């Protein structure tokens, strides 16, 4: 059974159709990378998966449960999907530790002490054990993004969604963040990664999706799609970015 499945997603903003019937299947433990030119709808697709954007048509299943169902417990289901954003979106008034602890304590009702230990573990895992008491403003972009990953992991999600998480980073900081994501993937985490990092998609991705103009143009094994794209639009895009 798939970990995450989208069927026929359509999203419109006024006259503008950003997703025109997208299907996506993510198997458990799989890393699916989504690439495509800006404005192709890849971020919207990702945001439709945890209903930060509500699709106008189509359905999204997390395991057996449909999050787009009329009375679906959306908040509870979002706990099972971690999300990391391009602009980090850390909570500025809380320390790195506070950011990671908050949701387990407030949403899940986890005891503070246990949550604290878990948060420290996670910060250590992303290489920031020594930054636990710093506020986001005092961290570099790469450090902030790794805190954001730890924050999402603190809810023990079944799936992690990454929305161009390295696009706002200086080149030398990208490596640390990708390193953390690579370790996560090797640990068996199910991931959907919207990215411009073709190297990451090739080496870590199990499946690659190329989107253009709100639709999936081509998908398959990353080495095949990147090495020998069959569609003309994929070839044109890759010739520009590689």
């Amino acid at each position: 059974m798939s970990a995450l499945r989208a069927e026929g997603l359509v999203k419109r903003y006024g006259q503008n159709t950003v997703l025109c019937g997208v299907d996506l299947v993510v198997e458990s433990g799989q890393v699916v990378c989504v690439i495509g030119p800006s404005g192709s709808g890849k971020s919207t697709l990702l945001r439709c998966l945890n209903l930060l954007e509500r699709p106008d048509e189509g359905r999204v299943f997390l395991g057996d449960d449909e999050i787009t169902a009329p009375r679906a417990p959306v908040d509870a289901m979002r706990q099972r999907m971690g999300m990391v954003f391009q602009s980090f979106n850390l909570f500025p008034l809380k320390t790195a530790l506070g950011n990671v602890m908050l949701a387990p304590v407030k949403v899940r009702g986890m005891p503070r002490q246990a949550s604290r230990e878990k948060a420290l573990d996670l910060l250590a895992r992303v290489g920031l054990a020594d930054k636990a008491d710093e506020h986001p403003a005092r961290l570099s972009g790469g450090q902030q993004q790794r805190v954001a990953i730890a924050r999402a992991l603190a809810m023990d999600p079944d799936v992690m969604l990454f929305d161009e998480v390295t696009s706002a980073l200086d080149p030398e900081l990208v490596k640390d963040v990708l390193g953390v994501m690579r370790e996560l993937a090797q640990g068996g985490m199910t991931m959907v990664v919207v990215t411009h990092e073709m190297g990451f998609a090739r080496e870590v991705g199990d499946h690659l999706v190329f989107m253009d103009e709100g639709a999936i143009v081509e998908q398959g094994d990353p080495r095949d799609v990147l090495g020998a794209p069959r569609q003309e639009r994929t070839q044109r895009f890759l010739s520009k970015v590689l």
Partner: protein
Amino acid sequence: MREFFNQFFDFGTARPYLGSLAKGFWVTIQIAFLAEAICLALGLVLAVMRRFRVEPNRPLAARVGARLVRALAITYINVFRGVPALLVLLAMFASFPFLPIPVVQDLTEYQIGFIGLGVVYAAYVAEVYRAGIDSVDRGQTEAARSLGMSGGQAMRLIVLPQAVRRVLPPLMNDFIALSKDVALVSVISVNDVVFEARAAQAQTFNATSLTIAGLFYLGFTLPLTWVLDWLITREERRTTRGIITP
């Protein structure tokens, strides 16, 4: 020239009234803080009501309910920002003793004074809070929701703490305006500093008591202004980067 000066600065004549003026100013201060407490709390409720939304997958009744909540807040804010505070005070003062409502009909002028001002200023304060709520980046709410927080939790735990911090200067500004509007309660026969100053003036035909009332006010509002300036510079320092500071 001398008469002109004496009319405002004849402290010898005003001296016997200094005690009652001080007592009056104590009443002014009390009403200012009580009204401020009411408008800070009520304003926050109104601002959150004005931004109240439910998920689009909720039943129709919930969505209509949310719209009603917003309409209620907007109506309140527009009405109380649109009528003079004095009119509200007079209307409450004139009508409350005759209303068959247990607690309301027994309210004293003093209580009507701070409740009335609190109710009026809540409308202004609500808009200040709302500006603060709107100034918090959408990404903050999205991050909170993506972690499984409800809309209410995201508002309470993430958005409001940032919003309130940002609007401290304008809230302070409204508090200064409110403290000056406490003078209005003298019209509904609350013995605040203005009431006492007018009483003294009526007996002495000398305006020095009014000057003293003004000095009392300045002794209160000027420090508040300094706190306000300090809040603003602190906020600037926090939000502007770089070494060049004005």
